């Protein structure tokens, strides 16, 4: 009986294989049904519902969600200076962190791509990949201990009469720059790898100083890769709420979303629209700058 069942299943499999044979559309359909169903219906559907929920409200007495259209959430988002400050603080930090990471990442990526030996290159790639993947939360926590009043930073700076930044906006900027640095190094490295060395030699042969070669050859060719890296540094900063919570008392968009999600989901939804819009705007600019050819 068991073998009959196997034979039956096999022949069903065969029949399906026969059906799929030579029918490309059917094959593609069978392959994509799962992933596209999950991502379009599940994920994009959820994003669409989030947009809809942003226009709902919560009954202040019962705490129940009122599923009727209202602009209430967006009105308070625009009109209340607290939220304006928070949005501006978040976006400003995202830009600052992106700029910082670009400046730190470029020399490292350049060394990896153009100067390191084969072996050195392999070691550096794995050396940067491993911390990139190691726990995000542990890294933020590590900085919390480093920056604390009796932490290692103050200990190291004390003999020369200095003090660490302590908790606050400087700490947030420092920690986020730290967290997203590998996300910037790797795309720039990949972009620089694609620049043929002969172009650099040609520029030198034609009498350009190293600085001129950098400014007129290397930078224009690798700029799209920098923009590609910046997408991650920017978007990750916009959505982070744990770093501000652990190393400062300042509120970011994410903190307000998180504190509203339990009691006022519609307002949390409206707040979440902000990083979506900012990220999409940033992606459109990045696309203009050619970043997607280099991701």
């Amino acid at each position, binding site marked *: 009986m068991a073998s009959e069942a196997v034979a039956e299943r096999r022949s069903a499999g065969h029949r399906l294989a026969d059906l799929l044979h030579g029918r490309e559309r059917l094959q593609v359909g069978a392959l994509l049904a799962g992933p596209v169903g999950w991502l379009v219906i599940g994920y994009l559907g959820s994003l669409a519902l989030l947009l809809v929920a942003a226009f709902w409200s919560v009954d202040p007495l019962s705490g129940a969600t009122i599923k009727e259209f209202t602009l209430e959430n967006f009105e308070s988002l625009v009109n209340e200076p607290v939220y304006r400050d928070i949005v501006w603080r978040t976006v400003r930090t995202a830009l600052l962190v992106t700029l910082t990471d670009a400046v730190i990442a470029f020399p490292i990526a350049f060394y990896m791509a153009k100067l390191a030996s084969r072996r050195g290159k392999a070691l550096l790639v794995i050396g940067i990949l491993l911390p990139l993947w190691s726990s995000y939360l542990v890294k933020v*926590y590590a900085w919390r201990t480093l920056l604390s009043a009796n932490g290692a930073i103050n200990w190291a700076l004390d003999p020369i009469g200095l003090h660490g930044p302590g908790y606050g906006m400087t700490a947030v900027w420092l920690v986020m720059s730290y967290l997203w640095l590998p996300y910037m190094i790797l795309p720039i490295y*990949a972009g620089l790898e694609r620049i043929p060395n002969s172009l650099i030699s040609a520029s030198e042969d034609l009498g350009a100083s190293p600085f001129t070669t950098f400014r007129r050859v290397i930078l224009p060719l690798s700029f799209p890769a920098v923009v590609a890296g910046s997408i991650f540094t920017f978007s990750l900063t916009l959505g982070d709420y744990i770093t501000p919570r652990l190393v400062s008392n300042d509120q970011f968009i994410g903190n307000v979303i998180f504190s509203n999600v339990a009691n006022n989901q519609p307002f949390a939804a409206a707040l979440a629209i902000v990083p979506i819009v900012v990220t999409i705007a940033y992606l459109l600019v990045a696309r203009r700058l050619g970043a997607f050819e280099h991701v």
Partner: protein
Amino acid sequence: MLLRLAVAAGLAFIYVPLIVIAIYAFNSSKILEWPPPGFTTHWFSQAFNNEAAREAFFTSIKAGVAASAIALLLGTLASIAVARHRFFGRETISFLVILPIALPGIVTGVAISNTFTQVLNVPLSLFTVIVGHATFCIVIVYNNAVARLRRLSGSFEEASADLGAHTWQTFRYVTFPGMRSALIAGGLLAFALSFDEIIVTNFTIGAGEQTLPIWIYSNLFRPHELPIVNAVAVLVILISILPVYLAHRLGAEEGGATGGRAAGGGVETEATAVP
């Protein structure tokens, strides 16, 4: 020379915080104070015997295994469709797959939590965590698989079909063996990503349940728990790094595909040409 110094400084910047936490894990004092006064392995045994931490650890393993299994299935299917077929909207697939990781994690978290609690009336649980994790893990498997399929010539599959193999046989004996190590690498990376994720998890986990990162987070503000947190933190770093190292080795044998989270997995490959 100056550049070498810059690289050394950059690497020091990257590693010092991790090293400091590793040292604190062996701190003999209960107070976090630099430099630590002495050495002990006491906190590791405390961590192993901490029931909540142990339970959270197994929850994280469950979430990671389930999420990477779903991601493996969906990512592989999508990668075969994109790398081996031509169809309308093919370029959109890469974009669709990368979206959950390109948008801030908080957006994915709120969106999924909103759908389950407000629209479907499904209470949050480990199941909703797995759904969230699987969504952003698909891209990792997908990028590794597409990169591999682009390197493997499709002519082997054509030859197999010409020799009379049907669709399954071709997949079973030709396509799959070629993709295997890329899929293992992708699965390992997806697991690593899920294992230490906290942003989406925080929004999708049920009341009373904890993954290991959530356990760490909820104990960060309790000073007397910090020594155990340090020990757990070191274990978490090791567990999240080990799969990545293995995946990198697997990829390195055949050309490398651990681009990882940066660029959603396609840095060393040319796999993620987002349109």
